[in-house]
C-alpha cells in the first residue's frame, strides 16, 4: 500500500517517509499540491493514505484536498493534514474540506506512527 507524503520540505518528507516505511508501507514523495494531484492520477488506486502539508508554493494543501474531494475515484482515500497551522479555525477548515485528521508540527516519529496506525490499523 502506498502513502503519499506531500510537503515542499525535502527534510520533512524524508522524516515522514522514514516513519511510513518503518511501518511497512511504501512512501511516495510529492513536492507540492500540483505534484500530488499528478501522482494521485497515476497511482491513486494503490494509495491508502495521504499525509498533506498546508502551506506550499503554488497549489497549497487545502486547495489540493478540495480538488481531490471532487474526484469520486479518490474521495474515500483518507487524508491527514500534517502542518504548522494548528489553530482551531484552521483544523475546522481542514476537516470541513475533507481531511480525516490533523497532526500539528512539530511531532515525534512516534506520534506520527500512532496516527498512521489509528487510520490504517
Amino acid at each position, binding site marked *: 500500500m502506498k502513502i503519499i507524503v506531500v510537503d*515542499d*520540505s*525535502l*527534510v*520533512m518528507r*524524508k*522524516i515522514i517517509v*522514514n516513519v511510513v516505511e518503518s511501518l511497512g508501507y511504501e512512501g511516495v514523495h510529492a513536492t507540492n499540491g500540483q505534484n500530488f494531484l499528478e501522482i494521485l492520477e497515476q497511482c491513486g488506486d494503490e494509495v491508502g493514505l495521504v499525509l498533506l502539508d498546508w*502551506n*506550499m*508554493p503554488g497549489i497549497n494543501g487545502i486547495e489540493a484536498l478540495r480538488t481531490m474531494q471532487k474526484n469520486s475515484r479518490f474521495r474515500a482515500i483518507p487524508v491527514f493534514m500534517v*502542518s*504548522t*497551522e*494548528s*489553530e482551531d479555525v484552521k483544523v475546522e477548515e481542514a476537516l470541513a474540506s475533507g481531511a480525516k485528521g490533523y497532526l*500539528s*508540527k*512539530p*511531532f*515525534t*516519529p512516534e506520534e506520527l506512527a500512532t496516527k498512521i496506525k489509528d487510520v490504517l490499523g
Partner: protein
Amino acid sequence: MSKIILYDCGAEVAHMVNNLFGEKVAIQNSSFDTQRPLQEFSMVIVETGSKKPEQLLQEIKALRYACNFRNIPIIVMQKKSDTYPKHPYIMAGATEILSLQAPPLACRQILQGYLIPNRQPLDQEMEYLTPFINSTKHVLRTMSSIDAEYKELYFPSDFRIFGDVSGIIGLSGSAEGTAVITFYWDLARKVISQMMRVSEDQINAEFIHDGVGELINMISGFSKKSFIGKPYHFELSIPTVVMGSGHQIGHPEEASIALVIFDVGKSSFALQVCLKPKIKKRD
C-alpha cells in the same frame, strides 16, 4: 567591571586604552587565540599594521565566530600609515574602525558607548518574544531531541548576522515582521541529522538549507497559537534560506529587533524576532 581583551596589540594601543579607561575596566593583553571563549569580555580590540590585512581579516572573522552571536564589539585600531579600506574589516565582523590618530576624547566616547549595558526588554516585547522562545525550545526538543537553553536577549543596532545559514520567515496579518533563525554550520548539521535520524556525514548542504527553513517555519507556526485574538497575531510566509556569513536581513521600519541566543552545549544559535502590530487607520 567590564573586561576588554587586546589581541596582538602594540604598546601604543595598550597605553591608549589604559589611559582612556584607567581602572574602570579590566584590560587583558593576549596573542590571537580562537580557543578562548569570549563571552566574558565586553570588547575585543585588534590592531592593524603588524599583520597583513588578509591575515587580520581572517582573524576578525574567527573572532566574530568565537563571539557566538554575543553582542561583543570588535574594534580595529588603525595606524595612520595604514591605508587599507575599512569596509572589508566591517564585512569580516568588525564593529568599528578607529584611527590611532583620532582625538582621545572622541575615542573614549566611542568606546565607552560600546560598553553601555544592553537595555532590558519591555513587558510588551516579552509578550511576543516569550512564545517564540518557548516554541524554539519545544521544536528542537520534539524534532531533534536537542535541549536548547535560552541564554540571553538583546537588541542589536546592527542588522548583520555572522552565522553560516539563516532561515527567514515573513510574518503578516494583525502584526507584521520577520523571524530569523541563524546557525553555524556544525550545529546546523547536528540539528538536521538528529531531525532525520541519520549520521552527520549524510547531511549535505541541500538538507541543511531545507531543514533550517523548515525549523523557522515550525518555530513561527507553533508560536502563532499564543497570539490568537491579540494584536501580535500573524500569518506565515513560505520560508527562505540565506547562506553566507555577514548577510543582512531587512526589517520593517521603526520595529525593535530582538536577538535571542540559545546554547546547545558549547555551541549557540540565534533567533531574531521583529514584530509590531499594524497601526489601524481611523475611519
